[in-house]
């Protein structure tokens, strides 16, 4: 509704709701900034986080990884870039952490050009820092980025080495011990995709999972914006789904709980998602408040118009 509709309103006769209705949207921007930055400061200073109650979809992710026998192969696809890291990095960190703690063998791939870098960073933060016993090539490997979107996925169905001929260090796939028995994607009992859009989890379902639903389990982490498109696939094709930072926080709290050692505080990098739920809560309440105020204005004006 454009402001032009109210040009004939006499400025002095404007009632409170009309003034509120025409409020400069920059005030809303300021409120949003405060709603996000306030809790960040507060949580940053006090270090307190809100409790989480894991939902079904997040519990399923945890169980899928938990039930795998040690040394199982897991294919982890980083289909996002640093622009979405705010939302997806906490999931990636927790997923890699649970896999590393379970002593699963991880193969990282990226279908987004910058995904390889993000994967490398995650490897550094989780595996190199906290699980230094795991060796690159034997226990995990980063295969880097491959251009081609779905074409790469289809190629994975038949020939892993052709899709990813070398890893990010430049080592040929045939020389990497962890990939010795890997011919195609179905050699991985579990596929994990952390995706921010196209290509991402939806394409994995369409091109890979639907081809072998019974041989390969699939869990996905996604941004809030792609979650609605993925829910139809849960729980048939996507066994577990982490939707946005909320899903990440639920899953993170489960992983932390399972790996908790008495007397040792969880490292702050494993609390990222739960910390970010603070600003979420206040900002969501602000949005809810804005919608309510907007409708109060609407009904007040409607009544005035009818009177």
């Amino acid at each position: 509704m454009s402001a032009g509709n109210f040009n004939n309103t006499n400025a002095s006769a404007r009632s409170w709701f009309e003034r509120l209705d025409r409020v400069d949207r920059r005030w809303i921007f300021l409120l949003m900034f405060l709603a996000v930055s306030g809790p960040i400061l507060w949580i940053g200073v006090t270090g307190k986080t809100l409790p989480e109650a894991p939902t079904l979809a997040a519990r399923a992710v945890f169980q899928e990884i938990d039930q795998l026998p040690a040394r199982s192969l897991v294919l982890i696809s980083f289909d996002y870039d640093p622009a979405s890291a705010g939302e997806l990095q906490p999931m990636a960190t927790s997923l890699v952490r649970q896999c590393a703690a379970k002593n699963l063998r991880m193969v990282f791939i990226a279908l987004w050009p910058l995904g390889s870098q993000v994967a490398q960073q995650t490897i550094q933060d989780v595996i190199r820092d906290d699980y230094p016993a795991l060796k690159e090539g034997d226990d995990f490997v980063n295969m880097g980025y491959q251009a081609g979107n779905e074409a790469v996925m289809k190629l994975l169905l038949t020939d892993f080495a052709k899709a990813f001929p070398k890893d990010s260090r430049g080592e040929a796939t045939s020389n990497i011990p962890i990939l010795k028995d890997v011919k195609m994607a179905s050699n991985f009992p579990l596929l994990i995709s952390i995706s921010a859009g196209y290509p991402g989890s939806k394409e994995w379902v369409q091109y890979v999972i639907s081809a072998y639903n019974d041989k390969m389990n699939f869990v996905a982490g996604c941004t809030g914006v792609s979650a609605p498109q993925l829910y139809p696939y849960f729980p048939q094709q996507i066994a577990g789904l982490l939707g946005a930072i909320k899903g990440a926080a639920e899953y993170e709290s489960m992983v932390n709980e399972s790996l908790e050692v008495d007397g040792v505080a969880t490292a702050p990098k494993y609390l990222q998602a739960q910390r970010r739920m603070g600003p979420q809560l206040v900002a969501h309440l602000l949005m809810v408040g804005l919608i309510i105020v907007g409708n109060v204005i609407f009904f007040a004006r409607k009544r005035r118009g009818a009177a």
Partner: protein
Amino acid sequence: MKRIIPMWIAIIGGFAMMLSSFIPLAESAGEMFADVFNVVAAIAFVLGAGSLAKQHLEKLSRRDAGWGYSIITLGSFLITLFIGMLKIGIHPNPSFPQAAYSGSNDAEGSAWSWIYEYMITPLTSTMFALLAFFVASAAFRAFRAKNTEAILLLGTAFIVLLGRTFAGVVLTGWFPDWASGLRLENLSIYVMQVFNTAGNRAIMIGIALGVAATGLRILFGIDRSWLGGGDA
């Protein structure tokens, strides 16, 4: 002739590609096209770069308002291109030291990664973050109960917004077990699995038909507006 030949190229290419999906021998044609396309798009970067340079050089030479910003754009473009194309300051990959360009541009501490980390990341992700402000102003303005459609739109958004935070747990967490389906977090999942699935499914089926009809319009030569409007 200048329009007929491109049209035939499109028609033949399109039908051949369609058929190749059904011929086991030619099933990799799609992947091959993806490669070919990526290469053509990478080569076409020259055209984009040319257009970018042209628009800013013209602005400069005309001394248009804000020509100073054109210097910034051109300068940063050329410097970044120079650093990246020549892999300035990148050491060879330790596994293959004999290959001078085997190192990755992304190596930590390189000029390239400096540009990435301190320019591209803050600029693009802050641009992305502006959305948080825009969802708020859009919700305030557009989510008003004007009619049934609008009520459904804002009502669902309301439920999901509340159900996705701890507030939902506080507000409805006390519901007894037999009414647990009405707890906000479960309600939002129910909405997702039923209404959202139905809506998305219909949209997807519609899109599939739309894509098929659009594709066929092109392949039958009915719609030539992409070659230029009308039948000129």
